[in-house]
């Protein structure tokens, strides 16, 4: 199967070239963030304060890695369920974020925000955490170190594999893929 190579940060043009179902290999910087970090970020936005990281054109990876063994850049690092971040994603997209990587379906508000702000929702393989960790070449905490594994990390990745689930055209591979392979009767 063909894989498209993409580099972060992403431009509107990069986003518009991708369609739901495309498998991509991501190279560049991605940021991590889970429930607690998202809450802090959105609280800052609501208070009118600046964000600790410039998310313009960037992707957030929903991950809470296992502890790194000595000599490793990071522990096993597969995606967590994205639905828990639905409440926060549209706000962050208003502040330049281009998209996120996780697993599982998103709500309509997120899908609408992807169309409005030209963004993407991608999924990496849930449970392929040892394989995904190998594509992470560097990891450093850039915000909220007190959150431990939930802190915001800046990751440098090389050929990190993911699949576009929701594109900027309103397509959803979870719905379309299922329809294509469903056998009724």
């Amino acid at each position, binding site marked *: 199967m063909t894989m498209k190579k993409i580099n972060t940060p992403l431009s509107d043009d990069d986003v518009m070239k991708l369609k739901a179902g495309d498998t991509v290999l991501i190279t560049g910087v991605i940021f991590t963030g889970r429930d607690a970090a998202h809450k802090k970020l959105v609280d800052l936005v609501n208070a009118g304060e600046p964000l600790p990281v410039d998310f313009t054109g960037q992707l957030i990876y929903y991950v809470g890695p296992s502890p790194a063994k000595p000599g490793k850049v990071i522990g*096993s690092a597969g995606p967590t369920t994205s639905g828990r971040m639905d409440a926060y994603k549209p706000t962050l997209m208003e502040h330049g974020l281009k998209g996120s990587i996780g*697993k599982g379906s998103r709500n309509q508000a997120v899908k609408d925000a992807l169309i409005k702000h030209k963004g993407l929702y991608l999924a990496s393989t849930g*449970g392929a955490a040892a394989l995904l960790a190998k594509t992470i070449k560097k990891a450093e905490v850039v915000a909220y170190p007190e959150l431990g*594994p939930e802190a915001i990390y800046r990751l440098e990745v090389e050929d990190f594999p993911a699949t576009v689930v929701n594109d900027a055209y309103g397509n959803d591979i979870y719905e379309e893929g299922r329809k294509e*392979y469903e056998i009724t009767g």
Partner: protein
Amino acid sequence: MREVNVADITAAIAELSMDANYNLGDDVYKAFYDALEKETSPTGKNVLEQLITNANIAKEEQVPMCQDTGYAVIFVELGQDVHLVGGDLNEAIFEGVRKGYGDGYLRKSICEPITRANTKDNTPAIIHVDVVPGDKVKLTIAPKGGGSENMSAVKMLKPSDGAKGVVDFVVDVASKAGSNPCPPIILGVGIGGTFEKVAYLAKKALLRELGSSNPDPFYAAMEKEILEKVNKLGIGPQGFGGRTTALAVHIEVFPAHIASFPAAVNINCHAARHKEVTI
């Protein structure tokens, strides 16, 4: 009476915690290869190949196959001729979890339910003790991830719902779970007993070797029927569409009250981890 020191139990649990998280069982490997042959979706095949590579990397490097190293669910079969010495059994098991999750670089994922404050050492463990004849202690650990656990369900069916009621319920749970529990999944199904027993049966069903069937031909046929129906849903590996939504369905049955018909589905992800040892 045979004496067993609980320190041996601590050491065994620590070892099993790491073993289960690093080394995927041969039965799951085989299920991946079988699925790869049958899968027609290219994206689905790609996912299955990634899962095989992932399991290989985890094994070679002795790192967790999934970052969610789970709630430590422990089944103890305690021989009634065993005299445990050297301390408290529960505490010995917790200490084993502390040690295994600490020394093994496993993620600590247990927290107070309301404040969400992490207990920081992955304790407590969930412990199920069964007293059995003999003078041995059998320990099984089944680390359980949150993503698939969250999609599980219990339903008090009506006796008149019959076999069809169970089949429809299980298929519906798998359908609603969709891409969330990291398909391909394994469905542990409990039928009968009481409200709490049926959930236990569903969990216990997940310990069975993949590819094995319920010894009762009636329930073996039901397992097959559910598996076929679930794989017709089209959800596929990771929910991208495909033929492999579930790798197996395992049913455990227990007599029910004349007025009740409980059923439970415990969803396990492909990171189907369980290891055992007998002391």
